[in-house]
């Protein structure tokens, strides 16, 4: 058994690390979405966090927790700065502005020497342990769960539904949006820091438009009406390619198909509680019929 586990762990540990990190990313965008903000800056924040942490680990003797702290704080500061003017925008316009921001970050990183240009940073010490991810993911989940059931969570939801009405309920809309945006940046940044310390290398190409869309996909695929959604979404989309690998060349086609089918039947994501409830009810009635 132990031997089996060792073998399994040797092969799949990085897949499992990846799931944990993707879960954090999906949660980071869940948070901004729960406040009605369609922000695509989270990939860029992940990158900022990753570079900040990697540079500290490679160029100083500071410990890993400090590097992770930097991977949380740097994106938070950037988010604070760009959030102020940007968050007036709504819907796709915000998505576009944050996409533009991400592009600016990517090109800057690409052209700086200290960030290694297109080669990125290589030889980052491998410091991420499985329990780092479990711990930080746990803290994130716990915090978000508490936030959800508090006045902050309700304020987020009110803002998502009707900004004007929310304002007239005495909610400082600008401040709460900024809060969601910055917290999202912190979570994404930490995920970036953790990721950098197990893949040995980071590069500007990892944090562009496509990653932003990937992160969004995981959250929406899982469902953004509760915390389980982003978790399930990131889990499913991370293991799907593994499960489909027997399809060889058609693997990606199958991925696309599964994505479509799931969204078609569960448009609110795989973790759609109301749907699950009706299904269970239907199941119950079916089985009771059989008993009779």
């Amino acid at each position, binding site marked *: 058994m132990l031997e089996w586990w060792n073998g399994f762990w040797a092969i799949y540990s990085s897949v499992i690390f990846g799931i944990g990190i993707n879960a954090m990313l999906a949660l980071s965008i869940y948070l901004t979405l729960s406040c009605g903000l369609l922000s695509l800056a989270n990939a860029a924040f992940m990158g900022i966090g990753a570079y900040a942490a990697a540079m500290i680990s490679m160029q100083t003797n500071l410990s890993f927790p400090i590097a992770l702290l930097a991977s949380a704080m740097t994106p938070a500061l950037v988010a604070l700065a760009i959030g102020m003017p940007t968050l007036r925008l709504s819907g796709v316009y915000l998505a576009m502005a944050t996409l533009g921001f991400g592009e600016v970050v990517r090109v800057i990183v690409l052209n700086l020497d200290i960030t290694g240009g297109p080669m990125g940073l290589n030889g980052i010490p491998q410091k991420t342990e499985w329990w780092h991810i479990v711990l930080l993911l746990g803290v994130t989940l716990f915090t978000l769960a508490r936030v959800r059931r508090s006045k902050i969570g309700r304020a987020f939801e009110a803002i998502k539904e009707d900004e004007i009405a929310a304002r007239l*309920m*005495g909610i400082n809309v600008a401040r709460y949006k900024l809060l969601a945006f910055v917290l999202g940046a912190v979570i994404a940044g930490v995920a970036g820091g953790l990721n950098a310390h197990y893949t040995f290398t980071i590069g500007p190409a990892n944090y562009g438009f496509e990653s932003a869309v990937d992160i969004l996909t995981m959250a929406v695929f899982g469902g953004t009406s509760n915390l389980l959604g982003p978790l399930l979404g990131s889990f499913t989309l991370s293991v799907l390619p593994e499960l489909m690998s027997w399809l060889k060349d058609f693997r990606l086609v199958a991925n696309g198909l599964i994505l479509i089918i799931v969204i078609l039947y569960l448009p609110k994501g795989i973790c759609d509680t109301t749907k699950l409830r009706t299904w269970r009810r239907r199941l119950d009635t079916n089985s009771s019929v059989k008993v009779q």
Partner: protein
Amino acid sequence: MLELASVSKHFGGLQVLQDVSFSVKQGSIFGLIGPNGAGKTTIVNLITGLINPSAGEIRFNGQNLHAVAAHNITQLGIARTFQNIRIFKEMSLLENVVVGMHRHLGYSPLSMLFKLNSFKHAEASAKQRALELLSWVRLDHKAQMLADNLSYGEQRKLELARALATEPKLLLLDEPVAGMNPAEKIELMEEIKNIRDRGFSIFMIEHDMRFVMELCDQIAVLNFGKIIAQGSPQEVRHNPQVIEAYLGKEEEV
């Protein structure tokens, strides 16, 4: 307590309000009536800080509301309902009302994170209070339903409860009984009286004359952005200008 002094507003070239002045007294019900498009809702939007006046001043309890953000105006004690209903459709009725209590839930982030007593207590009493407010408008039996599932008239009542939840000193109602039948109107009229008696001041826009005349202590009439009459219901009702512009010749309403 609320005072408008020579307030004007234009949208581009369209002059919507001109030199509007009136004041609302503490503990009273003030009615604003006038033809469609006269600028009544615009006045409510100005008071609640959604738009800014082009000229003039709005004061609430002596404080100038110029450039005060909408959420701060709510915190000063002004709440409103909307002519085109704006409830939070994806939330339950209870949550809608609890959102209204936002600024009265004073627990710290720490207490929120660790479910300390102050948090538990504040949340529980907010729920309690919300249920009470819902019972004022007779919606407490639907407290757990999604607001989207309510009929039009019920949504209006929910809005009223939600506005009350902000514990306003002044309540602005934009056509509170639109879409209700006479029996329901009378029911709501009683509720509004009760609310007034509980110490709220009320500013109300309404086209139903029976309702306005019976409830209001003071009425102002707006026509094409100008106040054309002001006074007690009796005075206004017999003002020829008001009859001409608003009520129409036949007495029967």
